[in-house]
């Protein structure tokens, strides 16, 4: 039990730190991939086998590939993504201090809290080893809950995804109305000046 917790935990924290300190976004994506795999192992150790698979398929398979596409798109045609000057070096120390304070408070709270009595369980299944049928967290257990008790939130999820799809097409589609960059602003200003000059003639 403890090796099953501590090894993924160390990998999780190390890869999270690698994600935010990597110099190039591609390295961050690789670190995030390692992070997601470690998290999937932790989900399995908590007998959430369906969520572990969803974590691998949706996060590693879809979201990270989206990140890779955007990185490839942004570095094509123009210069490769460079870091630029770090304009907020002064923020690093305060950020670390705030984080340590919050961490200390949360840890103190967790360690001083008592075990609470268990609330009534919605799950019909009992706990068992992951991978066997009809135990807590198995696909059938999850599916029964998702399509009976939690059917309405599941349907609203479809609406959220629909909004995302329409929003992305509105933002980045062919008819994208405005590109908010300095070069584009110069272009617009020049066109306006020319139009005014034409009106004058």
């Amino acid at each position, binding site marked *: 039990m403890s090796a099953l917790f501590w090894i993924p935990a160390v990998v999780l924290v190390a890869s999270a730190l690698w994600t935010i300190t990597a110099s190039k976004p591609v390295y961050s994506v690789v670190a995030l991939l390692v992070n997601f795999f470690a998290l999937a192992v*932790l989900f399995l150790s908590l007998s959430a086998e369906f*969520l572990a698979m969803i974590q691998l398929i949706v996060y590693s398979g879809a979201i990270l590939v989206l990140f890779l596409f955007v990185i490839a798109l*942004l570095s094509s045609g123009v210069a490769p993504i460079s870091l630029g000057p770090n304009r907020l070096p002064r923020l690093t120390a305060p950020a670390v201090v705030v*984080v340590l304070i919050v961490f200390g408070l949360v840890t103190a709270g967790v360690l001083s809290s008592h075990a609470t009595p268990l609330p009534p369980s919605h799950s019909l299944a009992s706990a068992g080893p992951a991978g066997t049928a009809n135990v807590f967290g198995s696909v059938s257990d999850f599916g029964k809950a998702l399509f009976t008790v939690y059917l309405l939130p599941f349907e609203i999820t479809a609406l959220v995804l629909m909004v995302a799809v329409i*929003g992305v097409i509105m933002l980045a589609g062919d008819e994208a109305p405005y590109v908010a960059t300095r070069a584009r602003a110069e272009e617009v200003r020049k066109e306006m000046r020319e139009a005014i000059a034409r009106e004058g003639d």
Partner: protein
Amino acid sequence: MHLLPVPLADYTVLSTVMFLIGVCGVIVRRNPLIMLMSIELMFNAANLLFVTYARAWLNNAGHIFAFLVITVAAAEAAIGLAIVVIAFRSSERVDVDQVSALRG
């Protein structure tokens, strides 16, 4: 009172560490892609906590909510990346400090 079957404190502290690393990333980094990845880290920390307490209380609601969080994270990543693409399509440097005018 039942004995909880998982070391709750360990998982809670691990989730807190991961969340705070994500907060640090959003505060310190200026690259919008890495900031979005830090937000994903925070989503995942919340998911870990949901799954931990679902297991501790043998209650499915945590699993369902983690599933919904994954969905919302996917939608957020798609829209955030679309904004990054239109904001930095024609610029050579990817830096959020560059986007100083947010007029439509």
